[in-house]
């Protein structure tokens, strides 16, 4: 492409990341030895859900050949301050247990040795005396007085309770023609990237500082928390991301307590330490999405208009509130109306401590649990009102002409056309034929069902939404919180080659490719000519509290920072080139690697020459221009303001849309669900690169389908953990996933310069609800819970018949 042509943004540009990944040349955290003299860490973990530690004897372990040091929790904790969270409660969270253990897998002691093999040998030689205590496992039972007390100082396991009202929900329910209610349990699940947690922590004296290389992915709001726990100023804690990360889906956020632990141990033992979590540790003790006991009520008028919603959420947070929790409970809060017009909403949120691994970011982050309630209630309402479930949703959608839409709990929906997306889903599924097929199947005695779910996808989070966990009075005391900043830096070196540095710590999403497309468009280059740096380094790079890879932040916010910094570079290039070409800057265009005079073909100068001038000859630059070419743009969308006194908050900057439809047949003899049709329609705003979007859509579905059908972190009634291997925790394989028909509608977002929306959670939020709805329709019963394993579905089918 020589002259200006079709922009790179929007094209299926092959991923720049792929060549290294496909040839074995990409480097991940376990491939790195960034400093010499590294010792290897293994962690002794609690076999008990709840027990007092009466004695830890490390004598034999410390004496083992090859062992460099052994540290107990009690020793480590004295060197640390607790890790803070937004919930004001007497719950001290340290990354290792000292006086008692509160979940199976909680670290109890740390061994550093010549290699991981010897470190594990030493673990077997540590003797811990435990006095077992009654465990709080089930979220409802944990509220009873007789339940084990996870943190005695709280006084009960109920650690947080807030209620919210928007509009007049009581009146809506008083006047309702019909009320639909559902209550259910939601299981624990985890996103289980194929690469586990990993880190190298290095303490240096004089000046005192910590450097940690890891696959931690942010949010970097956790960096000051870590520094505080280590009792050092923020500039003494440097976090460096590994060149590649083997997937995250949010869960690598939960690595940060281990970073604090390793940093402290590195200082105490006087050597750099490496820890690579193994799969069993990961399943047992990394992080999980919350298990819940939730309920919903939905009020409807005579016409089937949804007039009010009441949510009651009881969330098992695990043994500690690990920041940014309880964000998962509040992520969907500002969008509690889903896709619908109702303005009367009541929410009751209770967090209960349980003897389980602390919850944290996992794909969908609160979305699957939220939509399971709302969208199952909509399907149930459709059945009880005698309205087609698609039609019921259409009647209640926020209309296309109402955007931007100010949702009752404060979310500002940027754009959307929900009915259009639904229509496309119906068309792709051939809904009328599907219904006829259902009739025929039922007439033949078969269990055939159709389920729907529609949802919004909040992206680019307001860092302040988690402060909904505090009352307006508490928030007033702590000072304002708002925003969701992004920073991107674009530079042209003396050879004219472009480098863009991102703060989005990607884990496979293809940010480098999309960023290169954006820069290439802005500077008239080819994407493969742009170098993209994603190895976030808090010492040598630009970052903000909001930096990181979460909440679909990249295509909602980060892209705007890339556009802005690229524009600034382009303006400077044009100014310099204009001077060289003796035209006005506005007459210069950048294309094909050259600065040209607009409208004059085959003219201009190579960008390399223009760039060189800024580096080699600053004195020759037009007046007012600084030397060099480097621009860092930091921005935070204006809409992301602090929560107001009514607990309304604009929680995210873009709101995508998803409409999924599933048709299933259930075999009552085996409980096997066969997916006959699955359609998934998305509005991601402007598509930056179809390869990347397709990958996120299909990957999100796979996570959602696994969660719907097979994934379950199982604890028994004593809190023993039963899902400690990939044989026990079942993730779907290529042979388990049904075909999916994907469709797109596009409403450009006004929230950023490109019109794109965040996307990536996608169907992971809706597939659990859709599958449950389809199975409920097939079985003719509403008490359908997850995961829809063979055993569970068989049982439901047997009871239904």
């Amino acid at each position: 492409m020589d002259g200006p042509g079709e922009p790179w943004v929007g094209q299926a540009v092959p991923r720049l990341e792929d060549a290294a990944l496909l040839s074995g040349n990409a480097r991940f955290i376990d491939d790195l030895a960034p400093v010499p003299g590294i010792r290897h860490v293994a962690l002794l973990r609690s076999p008990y859900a709840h027990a007092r530690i009466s004695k830890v004897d490390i004598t034999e372990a410390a004496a083992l050949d090859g062992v460099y040091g052994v540290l107990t929790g009690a020793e480590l904790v004295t060197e640390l301050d607790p890790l803070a969270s937004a919930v004001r409660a007497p719950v001290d969270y340290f990354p290792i247990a000292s006086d008692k253990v509160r979940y199976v897998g909680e670290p109890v002691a740390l061994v550093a040795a010549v290699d991981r093999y010897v470190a594990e040998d030493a673990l077997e030689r540590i003797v811990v005396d435990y006095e077992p205590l009654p465990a709080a496992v089930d979220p409802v039972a944990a509220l009873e007085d007789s339940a084990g007390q996870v943190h005695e100082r709280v006084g009960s396991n109920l650690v947080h309770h807030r209620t919210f009202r928007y509009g007049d929900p009581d009146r809506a329910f008083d006047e309702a023609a019909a009320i639909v209610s559902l209550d259910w349990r939601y299981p624990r699940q985890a996103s289980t990237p194929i690469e586990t947690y990993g880190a190298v922590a290095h303490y240096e004296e004089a000046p005192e500082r910590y450097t940690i290389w890891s696959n931690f992915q942010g949010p970097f709001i956790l960096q000051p928390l870590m520094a505080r726990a280590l009792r050092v100023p923020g500039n003494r804690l440097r976090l460096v991301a590994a060149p590649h990360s083997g997937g995250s889906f949010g869960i690598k956020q939960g690595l940060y307590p281990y970073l604090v632990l390793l940093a402290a141990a590195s200082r105490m033992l006087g050597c750099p330490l490496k820890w690579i979590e193994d799969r069993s540790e990961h399943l047992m003790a990394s992080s999980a999405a919350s298990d819940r006991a939730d309920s919903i009520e939905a009020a409807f008028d005579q016409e089937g208009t949804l007039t009010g919603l009441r949510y009651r959420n009881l969330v098992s947070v695990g043994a500690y509130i690990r920041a940014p929790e309880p964000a998962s409970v509040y992520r969907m809060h500002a969008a509690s109306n889903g896709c619908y017009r109702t303005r009367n909403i009541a929410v009751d949120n209770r967090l209960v401590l349980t003897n389980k691994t602390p919850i944290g970011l996992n794909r969908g982050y609160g979305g699957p649990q939220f939509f399971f309630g709302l969208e199952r209630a909509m399907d149930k309402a459709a059945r009880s009102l005698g309205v087609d479930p698609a039609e019921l949703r259409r009647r209640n959608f926020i209309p296309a002409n109402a955007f931007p839409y100010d949702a009752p709990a404060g979310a500002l929906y940027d754009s959307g056309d929900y009915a259009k997306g639904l229509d496309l889903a119906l068309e792709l599924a051939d809904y009328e034929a599907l219904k006829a097929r259902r009739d025929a199947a039922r007439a033949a005695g078969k269990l055939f069902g159709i389920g729907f779910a529609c949802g919004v996808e909040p992206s680019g989070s307001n860092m302040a939404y988690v402060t909904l966990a505090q009352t307006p009075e508490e928030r007033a005391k702590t000072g304002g919180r708002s925003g969701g900043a992004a920073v991107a830096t674009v530079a042209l070196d003396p050879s004219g080659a472009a480098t863009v540095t991102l703060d989005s710590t990607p884990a496979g999403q293809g940010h480098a490719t999309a960023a290169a497309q954006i820069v290439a468009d802005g500077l008239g280059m080819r994407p493969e000519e742009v170098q993209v740096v994603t190895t976030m380094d808090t010492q040598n790079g630009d970052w903000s509290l909001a930096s990181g890879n979460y909440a679909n932040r990249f295509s909602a916010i980060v892209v705007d920072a890339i556009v802005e910094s690229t524009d600034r570079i382009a303006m400077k290039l044009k100014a310099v080139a204009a001077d060289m070409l003796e035209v006005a800057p506005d007459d210069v265009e950048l294309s094909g690697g050259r600065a040209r005079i607009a409208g004059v073909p085959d003219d201009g100068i190579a960008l390399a020459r223009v760039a060189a001038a800024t580096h080699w000859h600053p004195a020759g630059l037009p007046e007012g221009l600084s030397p060099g070419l480097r621009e860092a743009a930091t921005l935070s969308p204006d809409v992301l303001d602090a929560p107001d006194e009514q607990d309304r908050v604009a929680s995210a900057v873009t709101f995508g849309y998803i409409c999924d439809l599933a048709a299933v047949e259930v075999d009552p003899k085996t409980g096997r669900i066969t997916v006959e049709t699955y359609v998934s329609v998305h509005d991601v705003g402007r598509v930056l690169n179809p390869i990347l979007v397709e990958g996120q859509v299909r990957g999100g579905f796979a996570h959602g389908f696994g969660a719907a059908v097979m994934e379950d972190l199982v604890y028994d009634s004593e809190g023993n953990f039963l899902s400690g291997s990939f044989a026990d925790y079942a993730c779907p394989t290529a042979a388990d996933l049904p075909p999916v028909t994907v469709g797109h509608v596009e409403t450009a977002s006004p929230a950023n310069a490109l019109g794109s929306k965040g996307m990536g959670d996608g169907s992971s939020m809706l597939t659990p609800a859709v599958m449950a709805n389809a199975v409920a329709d097939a079985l003719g019963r509403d008490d359908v819970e997850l995961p829809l394993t063979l055993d569970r579905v068989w049982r439901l089918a047997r009871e239904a018949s």
Partner: protein
Amino acid sequence: MKPASFAYIRPETQDEALSALAEHGDDALVLAGGLSLGAMLNMRLAFAETIIDINRIPALNRIERVDESLRTGAMVRQADALKSADVSEAAPLLRLGLQNVGHYQTRSRGTLGGSVAHADPSAEIPLCLATLDGVVELASQRGSRRVPAREFADTALSTIREPDEMVEALHWPIHTGAGVAFQEIAQRHGDFAIVAVAAVIRNETEFSLGFGGVEGVPRVLDGMVGGSVEETVGAFVDELDAMDDPRASAEYRIGVARHLGVQTLRQAQELAT
């Protein structure tokens, strides 16, 4: 997830292997394909002072017809058995079972003998061998002996193999032309079965119907063709003492065993006629 220390012996002949077993048997584990043992060693669920690696004993790789049986050496790889014309002709039930064993990748290195020696309650290969009333050939320096497959595993993951013995070969009664069927149900493709059922019809009159994954060891119903399949299978399945674990309840196992048992036996009968 790293194994505890072990000494390692890699014999090159069966005699060397038996000598190593005679010397170390009490504290040794035999390493075949390693698809189960490797995982257990890595997770420190299995420990051994000595690992005896029998991957380099060529004699254990043979498939041959001996008398009325197909004899498969202990180290015949599952993938090779699946491709073997001898297996297809002389032990078609094994071929059906093998299609359900693990994954393409694990079958490449996984062995027939290793699976039988490991005695997982859900494993397909020991189920097929028990259903066919095959024989496990054990060898030690004391001599060799043949044990009916139905008696080889005593409980889940445990067999009557003596510490100085190794599984040398499996004998599959030739059932050319017989009706065979195999069905299983698992949550995911390639998982160990929750319930697996193998059926074989002999002489168009007798059947054997084996159930894996229900009890700790395969259970086989032998009977005569004719009569109500539902009643015959139902009566047998009702007496089974089914396992209960997070993957599936005992009720589910019984319910599905009945359903798959009837289907599988019917299918075998249809194919036999």
